[in-house]
C-alpha cells in the first residue's frame, strides 16, 4: 500500500482532473434478448370493436428500430372511413360501459394493470426496440409507471362521487386520443386509464414512429376481457389524427405532442361542443442556487435533460445556474456527462439510446448548429456512436442567453443550454420568460427559498431538489403554450367528466 504523496504540479480543479477511464473496468455487453419482445407481426391493421381489422385504405407505413434503421413492421395508414368505424364502435360500446357500476369498471382496469405487470418485460423490450430508448428506462421508469396509472385510476372508478365534482359525475362519451412517440405506452396509460375509469370509451391513435406497444396493448385489452369497442386503436400519421379529432361523433379530444399541432387542433375544435385538453411542448428552467446540494443537483440536471435522450416535453433543457457556483457545477456536470454510456438501447448498461427518427435527428442537428452560429459554446464528451441508426451525443451549450434560439425553442433532444443568473428574482424572471410553462426545477437546501421560488414560477409542475419524477397521483400539465388541462391525480378525472 505504497501511498504516493502528490507533487506540487498536481492540478487543483475537478475539470483538470477528469475521472480517468482507461478501461480498467470495462462493462461487457449485457444485452436484453430482442426475442423477449414477443412476436412482432410483419404487418398490422387497426383494433376496432375488439377485433384486429384490415384498413379500408391501401396505404401502409413502416416503423423502424431507430438504433438499427431496420424495418420492424408495416402498419396501416388510417383513413377517414377507418376512423369513422372506430368512432362508431366506441359510440356503440359507450352505453353499456358507462352504465356499469364503477366497481365493475375498476375490475377491468385492475386486470389490465396486473397483465401489464405480468408482461412488463415483453412490453419494456418492445418499447425499447420501437422507440430507441434504453431498456434500463423502459424497465425501471416507463413500465412501472404504466402499471401504476392503471392501478391508480382503477381505484377512482367507484369513488367518483367523492372526487370533488359533485354527486354522480357523468362521462363525456367518446374520447379521441392522439399521443406522441416519446413515451408511447406511458402516454397511452395517461390517456386510457382515466377515460375508462370515468366511463368513457376511446379511440386512440399512437404516433406513426411508435405504434407497436399500443397494438400490443390492444391484445392485453382482449386478454383482460374488456368489452368490445371500449378501447379502439387506429394507426397512421397526422392525417389520421386530424380525421379523428375532426370526427363529429367525438365528444372529447386529448392530445399530447407539439405546440403547432396542438394549436391546429384547438382551431379545428373552436366552436364545436368538444372538450379539449392539450399537453404540448416545454422549455423548462432547472434553477440551481448557490446553496444547492451540488452532487445531487448534477444528477438531477443529467436526469432532467438526458432521460429518454431529452425527448421529454418537461425536460430541464434550460439550466439556470447562479453565477457564484457555475464553474464548479459545470466542471462536475462535464465530468458526469463523460460517464454517460451511449449506444445499444437493449444493453442493460446503456444510459442514452437512439434518437427516435431521422427527422428528429435533423431538427436537433439544425438547432445545435444555430446555437453555435449564435455564439454559444458547444461541448460534448468523447464517445463512440454506433454506425447505423440515429444518434446524438449528450451536448452542453454554455454562454447561452435568453435571446438565443437554443434558449427559446424546444430542441427535444439531449442538448442542454446553460444560462446564469445573479439573484433569485432574476432566476424567476428568466425562468418565466418563455412562451412555454410546463415544468421547472429548483435546487437549494433552503426550504423557504424553494417555496418562495415555486410560488413565482409559472409552470404546471415544479420539482424541488429532483427532476423528471412522475407519479399517477400527481397532476401534470402546462401553462401558456404548454397547453391546458391536467393529467394524473384527482385533477386528471376532470378532463373526462361532464363537469
Amino acid at each position: 500500500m505504497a501511498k504516493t504523496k502528490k507533487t506540487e504540479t498536481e492540478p487543483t480543479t475537478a475539470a483538470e482532473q477528469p475521472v480517468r477511464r482507461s478501461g480498467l473496468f470495462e462493462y461487457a455487453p449485457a444485452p436484453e434478448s430482442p426475442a423477449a419482445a414477443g412476436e412482432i407481426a410483419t404487418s398490422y391493421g387497426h383494433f376496432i370493436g375488439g377485433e384486429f381489422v384490415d384498413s379500408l385504405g391501401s396505404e401502409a407505413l413502416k416503423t423502424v428500430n431507430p438504433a438499427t434503421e431496420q424495418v420492424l413492421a408495416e402498419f396501416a395508414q388510417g383513413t377517414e372511413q377507418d376512423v369513422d368505424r372506430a368512432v362508431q364502435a366506441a359510440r356503440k360500446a359507450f352505453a353499456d360501459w358507462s352504465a356499469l357500476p364503477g366497481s365493475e369498471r375498476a375490475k377491468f382496469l385492475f386486470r389490465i394493470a396486473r397483465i401489464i405487470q405480468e408482461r412488463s418485460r415483453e412490453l419494456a423490450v418492445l418499447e425499447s426496440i420501437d422507440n430507441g430508448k434504453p431498456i434500463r428506462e423502459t424497465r425501471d421508469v416507463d413500465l412501472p409507471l404504466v402499471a401504476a396509472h392503471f392501478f391508480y385510476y382503477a381505484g377512482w372508478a367507484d369513488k367518483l362521487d367523492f372526487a370533488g365534482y359533485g354527486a354522480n359525475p357523468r362521462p363525456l362519451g367518446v374520447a379521441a386520443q392522439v399521443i406522441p412517440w416519446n413515451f408511447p405506452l406511458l402516454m397511452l396509460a395517461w390517456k386510457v386509464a382515466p377515460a375508462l375509469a370515468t366511463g368513457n370509451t376511446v379511440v386512440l391513435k399512437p404516433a406513426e414512429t411508435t405504434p407497436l406497444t399500443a397494438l400490443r396493448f390492444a391484445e392485453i385489452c382482449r386478454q383482460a376481457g374488456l368489452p368490445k369497442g371500449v378501447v379502439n386503436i387506429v394507426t397512421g400519421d397526422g392525417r389520421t389524427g386530424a380525421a379523428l379529432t375532426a370526427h363529429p361523433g367525438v365528444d372529447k379530444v386529448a392530445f399530447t405532442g407539439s405546440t403547432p399541432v396542438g394549436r391546429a387542433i384547438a382551431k379545428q375544435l373552436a366552436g364545436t361542443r368538444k372538450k379539449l385538453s392539450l399537453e404540448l411542448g416545454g422549455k423548462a428552467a432547472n434553477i440551481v442556487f448557490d446553496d444547492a446540494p451540488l452532487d445531487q443537483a448534477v444528477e438531477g440536471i443529467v436526469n432532467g435533460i438526458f432521460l429518454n435522450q431529452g425527448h421529454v416535453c418537461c425536460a430541464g433543457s434550460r439550466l439556470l445556474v447562479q453565477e457564484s457556483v457555475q464553474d464548479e457545477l459545470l466542471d462536475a456536470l462535464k465530468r458526469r456527462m463523460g460517464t454517460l454510456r451511449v449506444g445499444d438501447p437493449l444493453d442493460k448498461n446503456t444510459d442514452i439510446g437512439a434518437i427516435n427518427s431521422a427527422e428528429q435527428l435533423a431538427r436537433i442537428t439544425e438547432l445545435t448548429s444555430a446555437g453555435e452560429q449564435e455564439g454559444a459554446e458547444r461541448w460534448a464528451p468523447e464517445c463512440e456512436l454506433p454506425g447505423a441508426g440515429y444518434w446524438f451525443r449528450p451536448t452542453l451549450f454554455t454562454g447561452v442567453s435568453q435571446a438565443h434560439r437554443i434558449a427559446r425553442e424546444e430542441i427535444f433532444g439531449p442538448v442542454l443550454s446553460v444560462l446564469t443568473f445573479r439573484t433569485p428574482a432574476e432566476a424567476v424572471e428568466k425562468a418565466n420568460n418563455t412562451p412555454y410553462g410546463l415544468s421547472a426545477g429548483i435546487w437549494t437546501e433552503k426550504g423557504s427559498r424553494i417555496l418562495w421560488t415555486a410560488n413565482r414560477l409559472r409552470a404546471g409542475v415544479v420539482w424541488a431538489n429532483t427532476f423528471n419524477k412522475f407519479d399517477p397521483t400527481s397532476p401534470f400539465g402546462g401553462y401558456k403554450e404548454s397547453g391546458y388541462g391536467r393529467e394524473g391525480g384527482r385533477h386528471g378525472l376532470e378532463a373526462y367528466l361532464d363537469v
Partner: protein
Amino acid sequence: MSTLAANAPGAAGGGLSDVAASEATLRRFLHGLPGVDQVGLESRAATLGTRSIKTTAKAFAIDLAISMIDLTTLEGADTVGKVRSLCAKGLSPDPGDRTAPQVAAICVYPDMVATAKQALGSSGIQVASVATAFPSGRAGMPVKLADTAEAVAAGADEIDMVIDRGAFLSGRYLEVFEEIRAVKEACERPDGSSAHLKVIFETGELQTYDNVRRASWLAMIAGADFIKTSTGKVAVNATPPVTLLMLEAVRDFRAATGTQVGVKPAGGIRTTKDAMKYLVMVNETLGDDWLSPHWFRFGASSLLNDLLMQRQKLSTGRYSGPDYVTVD
C-alpha cells in the same frame, strides 16, 4: 468546491490545516460544505446498483474484489488458532484454484497482530489492526493511543481507528480532529515510517448524510489515509449511499488538495452482487485511479467465499456449493 478554492494550495495534509485553527473555523468550514440531498443520493446509488456486470467484466470484478478484501475476524472468542487459519485462507483463498488472488489484508484485534504477522510472513498481505477502544471508542485518549502504539509495535501495517462519535455529534469537531491527529502520530514507527491510518466513522451512528460528508472532510484534513464506514458492530453498517457519498468526498478532496485518500466500506457486504455494486460506484465516481487495493477495500468476512463460489461458477459453468470453498 468553491468553499475550498480559496485555500487549496495543493500541499500535503490538504493545505487545509488552517481550517482547524479553532473550533469556530473548523465548524464554519464543515458546515459550509455543500449539503447532501437524501433522496437524490439514495436514488443515484440505487441506479448505479442496476448495472449489469457479466462475463469478462464479472471475472475481472470478482478478482479485483477478492484482492481488495480486508479479511476480518473481530470476535471476543478469537484465538491464535482462529487467526492463523484466517491468514491461511487469505494466502490461498481457493486451494483448488491457485489463480485466485490473495486478499489485501487480514484485520484483527491488537493482541492478534503478532500472530497474524507471523502467519503471513513475506506474502505481501497487510496486517490491519483495529485500535482506539474499538468499536465504541469510549476510553480516555491515553488508553486509545496505547492501544494504537501496541498494535503498531506488534507489526501492524494498518490501523483502523474509530472516531469519538459522541464528540462529533455534540459538535466538538476540533476534539475529533485532534484525536485523529494524535492517533496518526501514534502510527509512527521508530524508523520514521508509519502504519497507514484508516478512520472509521460508524456512519450508522452519525445518522445524517450531511454528518457523513463533514466527518469525511474532517478526517481527510486531519490526515486519514483511508476513510471507512463502519465497525460492523452496530445495526446499520456500510450502505451504498453512504459509500457513494464518501467516494464523492475523496474525489473532491483530491481535486481541492491533490491528496488522494482511500475508501473502505465495512459490515454487511456479503454477496458478490453487493461487491459488484460497490465496484461500479467506484468505477463511475472515481474511475481507474481508485480501482486498486491501494485505494479501495472491503471490510468483510463471509464475502470472500461467495466471491469464490461465483468465480468457480464462471470457470466451470456450474455452482459448486458451500462445501467446495473452505471455512477459515
